[in-house]
């Protein structure tokens, strides 16, 4: 494999991890807002219990992604930063408000409500901002003025593809988090929350898939190259749909206790589904970071430096795996944590 291909694969994997963790994190914030005051179900509590120890780890993955981008593809910074200054800047602003208020909420009970609403609303807007960057990379929204790239805000904001991308991002986020929280509630043996999340997973799943397909149809003319690439790759996208069907069907299978839904199995299939879809999309996006001005080969760092950095990554993750295992056992497995009141 070319060094630059390997680099973009790693970067893309980091994006995949962040997309999954981010969906859980932001989605849990949203569900926490919806069910925070509802006494009939513990869904809100379950969401918050998951969120408290995990948001930091999620945030670190965001930073890893940015650092890996700059160090693997240093020659992309100039163009990316001028195009993404405002969306990323606003995202940071909201992320800060969300992070701080969420932690403050744990320490100032009287203000729980307003803080929960902040976390819920930002849990929707931040992912929307993040996915709104995808269409920018596909072509048609960038103009060069004096050799300097400018984002055509008017054109972007008026284009339906932006809103379809956002709808796609949000339904996916909520679907993934609902399936995950369903599994988490099961681990905590909290059946009221379990049924609440299952109910939402059932309607969100088909909608998210339908919107994903429709989004491809709204892409602007300049982006026809990626549509062609996607259509040239039917196997991968077919596989992704197949795994969705498997995952969705698992929501209906009766477990041996007679309860509907095999949560762990459903979650596994859904993660595989998104994994395949994200890599297939990434493949279709090659060789461009931003069409047609920026390719991965042009932005790549010196390969020998890249291999050195790779060793650092390998060593770092090797040290961290034991820490993650401990973390997993304490917060996602330990009944004393899951079941506390």
């Amino acid at each position, binding site marked *: 494999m070319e060094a630059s291909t390997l680099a973009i694969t790693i970067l893309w994997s980091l994006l995949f991890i962040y997309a999954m963790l981010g969906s859980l994190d932001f989605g849990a914030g949203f569900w926490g807002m919806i069910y925070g005051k509802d006494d009939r179900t513990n869904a809100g509590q379950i969401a918050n219990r998951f969120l408290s120890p995990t948001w930091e780890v999620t945030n670190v993955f965001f*930073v890893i992604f940015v650092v890996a981008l*700059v160090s693997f593809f240093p020659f992309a910074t100039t163009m990316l*930063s001028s195009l993404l200054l405002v969306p990323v800047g606003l995202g940071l602003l909201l992320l800060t408000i969300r992070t701080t208020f969420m932690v403050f909420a744990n320490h100032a009970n009287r203000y729980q409500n307003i803080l929960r609403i902040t976390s819920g609303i930002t849990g929707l807007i931040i992912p929307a901002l993040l996915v709104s960057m995808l269409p920018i990379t596909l072509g048609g929204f960038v103009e060069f003025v004096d050799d300097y790239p400018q984002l055509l805000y008017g054109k972007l904001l008026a284009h339906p593809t932006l809103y379809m991308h956002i709808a796609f991002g949000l339904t996916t986020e909520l679907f993934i988090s609902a399936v995950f929280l369903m599994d988490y509630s099961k681990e905590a043996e909290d059946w009221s929350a379990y049924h609440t999340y299952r109910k939402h997973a059932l309607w969100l799943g088909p909608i998210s898939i339908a919107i994903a397909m429709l989004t491809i149809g709204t892409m602007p003319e300049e982006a026809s190259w990626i549509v062609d690439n996607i259509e040239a790759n039917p196997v991968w996208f077919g596989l992704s749909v197949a795994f969705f069907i498997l995952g969705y069907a698992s929501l209906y299978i009766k477990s041996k206790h007679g309860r509907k839904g095999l949560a762990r199995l459903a979650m596994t299939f859904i993660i595989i589904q998104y994994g395949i879809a994200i890599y297939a999309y990434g493949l279709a996006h090659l060789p461009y970071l931003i069409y047609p001005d920026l390719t991965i080969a042009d932005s790549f760092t010196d390969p020998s430096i890249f291999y050195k950095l790779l060793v650092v990554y390998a060593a*770092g993750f090797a040290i961290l795996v034991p820490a993650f295992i401990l973390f997993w056992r304490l917060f996602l497995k330990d009944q004393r944590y899951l079941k506390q009141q």
Partner: protein
Amino acid sequence: MDIVVMSRVLFGSSMGFHIIYATIGVGLPIMIILAEIMYWIKKDKDYALMARRWTKGFAILLAVSIASGTIVAVLLSLLFPNFMEIVGQVISLPFQLEIFAFLIEAVFMSIYLYAADRLPQGLRVLSIFFVAMGATASAILITDVHAWMNTPAGFEMTESGAIINVNVMEAFFNPSFVVTAIHVTLSAYMTVAFLVASIAAIRLMKRHISNEERAYHKKALMISLYLGAAMSLGTAINGHETAQMLHEQNPRKLAAAEGLFETTTYAPLSVGGYTSLEDGRVKYAIEIPYALSFLAGDRFDTEVIGLNEFPEELWPPLYVHILFNVMVGIGTLLIALSFLALFWKVVLKKDFPGWMLGLLVVGGPLSVIAIEAGWCFSCIGRQPWTITDVLPTADAATKSSSVSILLFTFLTLYVVLLFVTGFVMRYYFKRNPVEKDLAAQ
């Protein structure tokens, strides 16, 4: 304002905001470890309570340090893309390593915060130890990038601006790395010690507190005085070495710090005053004969290079002299204060008088001011370069005019967050006063 200036103001104020919380994030785990160790040795429950309460405060502040850190990390690429293009090629290693330090800190902090009651004592101390390691390591690693900007190494630049012959290790161990990293670490520990001392002193100045509570705050004050005295002395000794590093690596910056225009041997040290361009000297300063030469080279006849050796457009702003003086002045004052307080208590075995507690109350905020002054001195003193003698700031910055929108929203955010954190801290600790926790023991 022009775009470059706006980018500089935005980045500088973001760092100025982040560093307040970041410094506490680096230093507070050390205080918590000390309290845990005291508890282990003395079996006095007060120390366990101290560790618990400090951890609560830490958790509140940590949220802001992580959020603001995420901001500065991303802003660096957004506002100074041409700078990051070079960083990405030469000195990305510390950034990579830093992330693993963050991960270690984040994982163990969650464990210490949310699972402390499910862990045995040994594992608990171990996890807060990892938190401290992670925080200090991340401070040292980010300081490495900053040190490299001041004393770049490990690459060559061609006529056309391409970067060649990169040597990652040489860049990592650039000439000012070690001395600067020690300075940053010691000053962070020192700052947190004085901040904790401030809070304890405020409580002790209240008239109507129970004997248990008084004893509790005295123990907290003593821990922080010991740490503060040791660290402030260490900071000053190492600061002296930092100044010598400047003498060798970047005499222009040292000359600006001291307002020295003519190259001289037996150079005097100017304390206070301001550097006047018209008069070509520092006005209204107290001059200590020979001291600058001694500071720079450990000998009175050391030749110290003056600003006139350099073209005027390469001079940093002359007000950095004030920033430098503020840092050194506060450092000296706090050494004196902490040693005096310890002498009073340990040798004379007398209680702290009111005036001394009053001085200790301002010690914490002063220490934070010293940190801000030191960083601003170091970054502004590097001007007009972002990477000394390699990349001018004007070329490093973005050309996107949208910076103005971000500047005003972010400045507002910082002001609001300063107030809200203060409010939440007060709210939380008012709701959970020490008396209540002491009574519950």
